[in-house]
C-alpha cells in the first residue's frame, strides 16, 4: 500500500462532478444521447431536472409525462442529450405513451438508457427493466427512492442486482440529489465504452423460436439495413404486434431511426405545465 496515489481524490471522476454543467435546452453538438425510462412515478422527471437544470414539471402522480422532454448537460467534457420518456409498466402494449417510449429505445438508439427503478417496488419495476434489457445493451439502473426503501425497512443488495442484470446499479435519492454523482459517472462510463454491459437476457427461448428469429431478422436486416435490434423487431413480428407490422408495411420502420436522430431537439415542456 506504499504507492497509493495521493491525487486519487482529485483524479477520481466522481470528485470532478462538481463540473457537471447543466445545459438546459441547449443541446447543440451533443456527443451522447441518454434516454430516461422507467415505471410511472419513480422520479424520472426529478432525475431529468437535476441533470439538466430544467424545470420540467414534476408531480407526485403517475402519467404526468406523456411526451418526450429533452434537455442537455455536460460532464467530463462530453455533452449529453437527455430524453425523458413517458413512464410505462411495459413496452408490449399499444397506448400512445408506451409507443413513444418503446419507439425511442428501439429506433432512437440512445447511447445509454437509464432505467429508473423504484427501490420500494423492485420486483414489479424489473418487468420493464428486463424488457428494455432485451432491446438494448447499454443500460444503467438508477435505483431511485432508496431513502423511502430504507425508511420502510427494505434492504437491497445492489451489487447482487448489478451482477444479475449485468449492468451498473446506482442507488439514488434524486429528490435530495443523493447518488447523482455516481449515476453520472456510470452513465459516462457506459456511454464512452469504459464499462461494457453484459445484459441479462431471458432464457426461455426455444430452439424453434431462435431459428425463427434468426431467419426473420436476416430478412429484416436486408430490407432495413442499419436498423438496430433486428432480433427484437423479429420477435415482435412473431408475436403479431400490429404497430410493428404497420411500420414494416409502410416502410416507416426505416424512417423512424432517421427521424429520431435528425429531429431538432426541443424541450416540449411548455404544455407539460
Amino acid at each position, binding site marked *: 500500500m506504499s504507492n497509493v496515489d495521493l491525487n486519487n481524490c482529485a483524479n477520481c471522476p466522481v470528485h470532478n462532478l462538481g463540473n457537471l454543467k447543466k445545459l438546459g435546452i441547449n443541446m447543440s453538438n451533443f456527443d451522447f444521447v441518454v434516454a430516461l425510462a422507467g415505471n*410511472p412515478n419513480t422520479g424520472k422527471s426529478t432525475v431529468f431536472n437535476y441533470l439538466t437544470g430544467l*424545470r420540467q*414539471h*414534476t*408531480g*407526485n*402522480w*403517475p*402519467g*404526468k409525462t*406523456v411526451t418526450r422532454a429533452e434537455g442537455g448537460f455536460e460532464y467530463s467534457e462530453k455533452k449529453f442529450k437527455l430524453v425523458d420518456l*413517458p413512464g410505462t409498466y411495459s413496452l*408490449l*402494449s399499444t*397506448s*400512445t*405513451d408506451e409507443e*413513444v417510449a418503446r419507439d425511442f429505445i428501439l429506433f432512437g438508439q440512445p447511447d445509454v438508457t437509464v432505467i429508473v427503478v423504484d427501490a420500494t417496488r*423492485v*420486483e414489479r419495476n*424489473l*418487468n420493464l427493466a*428486463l*424488457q428494455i434489457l432485451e432491446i438494448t445493451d447499454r443500460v444503467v439502473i438508477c435505483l431511485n427512492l432508496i431513502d*423511502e426503501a430504507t425508511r*420502510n*425497512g*427494505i*434492504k*437491497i*443488495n445492489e451489487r*447482487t*442486482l448489478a451482477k*444479475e*442484470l449485468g449492468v451498473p446499479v446506482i442507488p439514488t435519492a434524486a*429528490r435530495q440529489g443523493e447518488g447523482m454523482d455516481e449515476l453520472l459517472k456510470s452513465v459516462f462510463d457506459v456511454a464512452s465504452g469504459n464499462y461494457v454491459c453484459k445484459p*441479462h437476457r*431471458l432464457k*426461455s427461448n*426455444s430452439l*424453434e*423460436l431462435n431459428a*425463427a428469429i434468426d*431467419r*426473420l431478422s436476416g*430478412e*429484416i436486416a*436486408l*430490407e432495413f439495413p442499419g436498423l438496430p435490434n433486428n432480433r427484437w423487431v423479429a420477435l415482435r*413480428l*412473431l*408475436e*403479431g404486434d400490429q404497430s410493428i*407490422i404497420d411500420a*414494416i*408495411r409502410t416502410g416507416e420502420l426505416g424512417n423512424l431511426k432517421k427521424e429520431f436522430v435528425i429531429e431538432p431537439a426541443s424541450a416540449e415542456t*411548455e*404544455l*407539460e*405545465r
Partner: protein
Amino acid sequence: MSDNNIKRESILATANNLRWEVGENLHDTLMESIYENATTISNKTVVFPDKKPAFSFDRTMDRILTSKYLGFPIMFLILGVVFWLTITGANIPSGLISSLLVDTLHPALKNLTDSFMPWWLSGVLIDGAYLSMAWVISVMLPPMAIFFPLYTLLEDFGYLPRVAFNMDPLYNKVGAHGKQALTMAMGFGCNAAGVIATRVIDSPRERLIAIITNNFSLCNGRWPTQILIATIFIGGVAPAYVAGLVSAAAVVFIAILGIALSLIVSWGLSKTVLKGEASAFSLELPPYRPPRVLKTLYTSLIDRTIFVLWRAIVFAVPAGIVIWLVANITIEGVSIANYFINWVNPFAFILGLNGVILLAYIIAIPANEIVIPTVLMLTVANLGLMHIGAGSGVMFQLDSVGDTASILHAGGWTLLTGINLMLFSLLHNPCSTTIYTIYKETRSVKWSVISTLLPIAMGFAVTFFVTQVWRLIIN
C-alpha cells in the same frame, strides 16, 4: 406494387408462416418468463422487513382520504380552504399593485408620451396595450401567487391520485375511462396540458370523451375570473364576516359543477355517438411524500405563476390595442364596440349576460386570462365613464376589488350577471391553444369543432335557463 413493397410483404408473410411454427402462446410464454425472471432476481436481492410496521402512515391516510363517506367531503373541504385562502389573501396586494401600475405609472407614462406622440399613438400604446397589461398583472398576479403554490403542494404531497381514485367509480359508471379523472385534474392547471395527458388512455373512444370533456375543468386562466366575480357579486351580498367563505363556496360550487357536467357529457357521449364499454385499468396510488415547501414555492412561482402571467401579458397587449381601436374607431359617431354591443345586447339579455361580456369573450379567444380586463375596459368605454378614465378604451383608477365592483355596477351588472358570467366562464369554447391541441391530438376537424361548440351551446343553454328561472322567481 413497387419492389420495396414486395420485399416488405414477404417479410410479413415469413413472419406469418413462422408464427405457426413457434406456437401461438408466444406472448404469454414471454410474459411469463419476464415475470419469473423478475421474481427470481428480486428474491435474490431484496430483503423485506420481517414485520410490517405497526402503524403505516400511508395506509391510514388513504383510508381517510379515499373513504366511501369522507372522501368527497374532504375533497370539497380542501378545495374550499384553498380558495378561501386565495380570496382573502389576494385583495390587499391586488390593490397595492394596481395603485402602482395604474394610478401612478399610467398618468406618468401618458403625460410623457403625449408630449411627443400623436394622440392616437399614445392612445393605442398607453391606454390600450400598457393598461391592459397593467390590469392583467394586478388582477391575476396575487391570486395566482397564492393559489398555484397551494395547488402544487397538494400535488407534490400525492393528493391528486387520491382524487382520481375517488372519482374513478363515477367515470366508470358513465362509460368513460377511470384515468379521465387524472386528465381532468391536469385540466385544472391547463386544458391544453389536460388534452395531451389523455394519451395515457388506450382506447380511442374513451380518449375522445376525455378530450371533449376536459374543457369542463376550470383552468388557470379561468380561476381568477371565478375568484374575482365571486368576491364581488356573491361575497358582496353576504354579511362581511362570512363574505370570504361564501365566495370560496361559490367557486367550489362552480368547480364541482364542472366535474358534474364532465360526467354528464361523458355519459351522453358514451351512450350515443361514442358507444362502448368502459375498459378496466389499475391506478397505482403513489406513496405520500412530504412536499418540499421552499422548492414548491419557487417552482410553482416560476413554472405556473410567471408562465401563466406571461402568457396573459402576451395576449393582453394585442388585445388591449384591439380594445382601444374598437372603442375609438367610430362610424357616424358610434364606436365599433358600441355597434356590436348594442347589436348583441337583446340576445345577451335573454342569457342574463350583456353585450360587453360576449364581445370580451370574442376578443379573449386566444387566452381566457384576459376576459376580466377586457370586460372592464369595454364597460368603461361603452359607458363613456370619462370621470374615471381619461377617455374611451382607457383603464381607470382601480385600487381595490371595491372599485372594480363600482365599475361593474355602473355598467348595469347585477348578481344575476355575476352568476351567469361565472357559469359562462365555465361553459364556453376552449382557448385557441387548447383547440389547436385538440386538433393535433385527434387529427380530426369534426371532433375539434364539436369540442369547441358543445361547451358554448351548453353555456348558452345553462345561462338562459338560470336567467329565466331567476326572473320568474325574483320578479
